[in-house]
């Protein structure tokens, strides 16, 4: 089993990274350089204006450690692809499955079922701690989503699966603000808006999903799957559809839960956001740092994987799921079993 190593995030603008004695040397203004031994780092995520020597990029590529470039606001720009990207036979199996409507439908159903189940679980968990009348509304939403799960086996095309997922998403986002217990007048959510984010919750969701999508893309690649060849998500040039598929079931329990926790513990407050004219919102630097720290801590938390029964750090769940998917595509496993959070 793989060991969960750390991701190094570089947020400070104007930082200069280089390779020195098997270490990543981080130089930022007005600070003595920091040396981080390569064997502690699994991947590197840099925000905005961060420079890196070619030799460091080469070395990271050679060690199969990914580098992800994001804008200062956390929007995805690029990722390195390392030279050996897995098993051709596995990719052939994956493409074969993606071209087979029946099998695509089956896999998509499981992705969607995992997501819906985990959304339901997130709602139920919040209902136990919610205030006033909210528990009933949250439970009702959970029941409605449960109804949608029942519809999944009846779906005859992937489009119908997407429709069911969309209905569940509408139910879920409608009650999402009810799961917040602090600063409710500030944290609102009318609808999911991606770019630009129109409200604080959307800006948080976009940021956290980008981070999670990177983890899922890395997981696909480390198992040897083609991250672009998805099932539930339509194929589109440049889009990591499979990474997004894999991410669906993890969104509610990792990303959404993280945001809820930070807001409910008042670690994120209205002061952490900048509201711009024209209804766009950005997150302040320190708050972004706080979110990344929280996500990294959470990755270390151990969960019992429902299928393997083994204690697994939450951060490795994408890898476990990618491996299970690979087994299914190769024909070693009858179904793809989604990750169901407890």
């Amino acid at each position, binding site marked *: 089993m793989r060991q969960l190593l750390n991701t*190094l995030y570089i947020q*400070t603008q104007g930082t200069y990274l280089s390779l020195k*004695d*098997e270490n990543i040397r981080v130089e930022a203004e007005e600070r*003595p350089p920091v040396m*981080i*031994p390569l064997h*502690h780092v699994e991947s590197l995520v840099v925000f905005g204006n961060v420079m890196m020597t070619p030799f460091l990029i080469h070395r990271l590529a050679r060690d199969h450690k990914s580098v992800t470039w994001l804008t200062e606001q956390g929007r995805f720009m690029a990722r390195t692809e390392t030279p050996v990207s897995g098993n051709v036979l596995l990719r052939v199996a994956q493409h074969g499955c993606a071209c087979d409507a029946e099998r695509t439908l089956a896999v998509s159903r499981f992705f969607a079922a995992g997501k819906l189940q985990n959304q339901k679980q997130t709602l139920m968990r919040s209902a136990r701690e919610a205030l006033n009348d909210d528990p009933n509304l949250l439970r009702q939403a959970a029941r409605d989503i449960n109804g949608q799960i029942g519809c999944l086996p009846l779906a005859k095309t992937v489009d119908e699966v997407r429709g069911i997922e969309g209905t569940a998403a509408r139910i879920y986002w409608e009650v999402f603000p009810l799961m917040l217990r602090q600063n409710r007048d500030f944290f609102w959510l009318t609808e999911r808006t991606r770019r630009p984010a129109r409200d604080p919750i959307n800006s948080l969701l976009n940021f956290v999903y980008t981070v999670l999508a990177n983890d899922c893309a890395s997981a696909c690649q480390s198992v040897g799957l083609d991250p672009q060849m998805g099932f539930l998500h339509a194929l589109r040039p440049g889009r990591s559809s499979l990474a997004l598929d894999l991410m669906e079931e993890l969104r509610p329990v990792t990303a959404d839960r993280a945001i809820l926790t930070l807001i409910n513990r008042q670690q994120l407050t209205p002061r952490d956001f900048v509201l711009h004219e024209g209804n766009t919102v950005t997150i302040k630097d320190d708050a972004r740092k706080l979110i990344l720290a929280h996500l*990294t*801590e959470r990755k270390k938390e151990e969960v019992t994987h429902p299928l393997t029964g083994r204690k697994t750090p939450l951060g490795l769940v994408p890898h476990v799921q990618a491996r299970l998917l690979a087994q299914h595509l190769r024909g070693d496993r009858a179904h793809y079993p989604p990750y169901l959070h407890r």
Partner: protein
Amino acid sequence: MIDLLVCYDVKTETEAGRRRLRRVAKICVAHGQRVQNSVFEVGVTDVQLLQLREKLLNAMDVTEDSIRIYRLRQPREKFVEAHGVDKYMDFSEPLIL
């Protein structure tokens, strides 16, 4: 991960000794972090520990130099006291710079 404390004394009276010192220091830097001039805290897997020991043994002169590797008891924060200047960084904590 195993936490180690690695310290060394390398005889630097001769040019060869100074060369050995630089090599030993480089090997330590590659595996861990410098907490004092010739003292390193190192977090490694068992395999990496074997590699580190092998490299150090090749670099040192067993008749002149001394290298000591201590295993630190975990959790580190409970068993390691640092006073004065302390540049230690925990690499298993979130790394956000």
